[in-house]
């Protein structure tokens, strides 16, 4: 595809359930980022993958959050035992390898925890 895609676009779940969010980056982009955007707030960095290096997990808010990436392709963000405060839009972005490159954002997954 031409851009970053994310699925599902919307997810409604019950408190305590686990959810998986998927991101397909632009082909050839070695860097992949996950962000969280709560309603009316800015972007909160969650995790960053760069090639085969160990990911930067410094932004993950709790041990209920984890993410994986297979090589330089698809990434999955998993939230275990969801809480109502996890409700937000989860954005994925990808870029070429270096810090100066533009990040291209996906449309996001809107998560609502009831």
């Amino acid at each position: 595809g031409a851009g970053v895609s994310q699925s599902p676009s919307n997810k409604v779940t019950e408190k305590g359930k686990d959810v998986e969010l998927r991101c397909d980056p632009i082909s050839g982009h070695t860097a992949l980022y996950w962000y969280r955007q709560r309603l009316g707030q800015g972007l909160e960095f969650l995790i960053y993958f760069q090639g085969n290096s160990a990911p930067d997990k410094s932004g993950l808010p709790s041990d209920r959050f984890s993410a994986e990436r297979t090589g330089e392709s698809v990434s999955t963000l998993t939230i275990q035992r969801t809480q109502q405060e996890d409700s937000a839009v989860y954005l994925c972005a990808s870029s070429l390898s270096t810090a100066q490159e533009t990040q291209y954002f996906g449309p996001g997954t809107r998560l609502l925890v009831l």
Partner: protein
Amino acid sequence: AQSVTQLDSQVPVFEEAPVELRCNYSSSVSVYLFWYVQYPNQGLQLLLKYLSGSTLVKGINGFEAEFNKSQTSFHLRKPSVHISDTAEYFCAVSDLNNNDMRFGAGTRLTVKP
């Protein structure tokens, strides 16, 4: 790690007025600076970026920003705004030591007729 502060959470202005959205950053090393824009119900897209060279950077839709190293600032400006500029604007910084990027909390620009 680097960080970004956007001093104004909301900026209301009238159409055709000038606007400045403020951004200050913190980093111990040289940085790259970015402004992203999020129009209503759309995804984020790059407005402009500073990598090196001239400190005045021009972007899309008539916006420009000036990198000021001594003041650690990268303020965004437009001399005359349009209704269509209503959006959320995010300043971001990455540094040369690592490739992760940090975003500010955003500034909501509302242009009134």
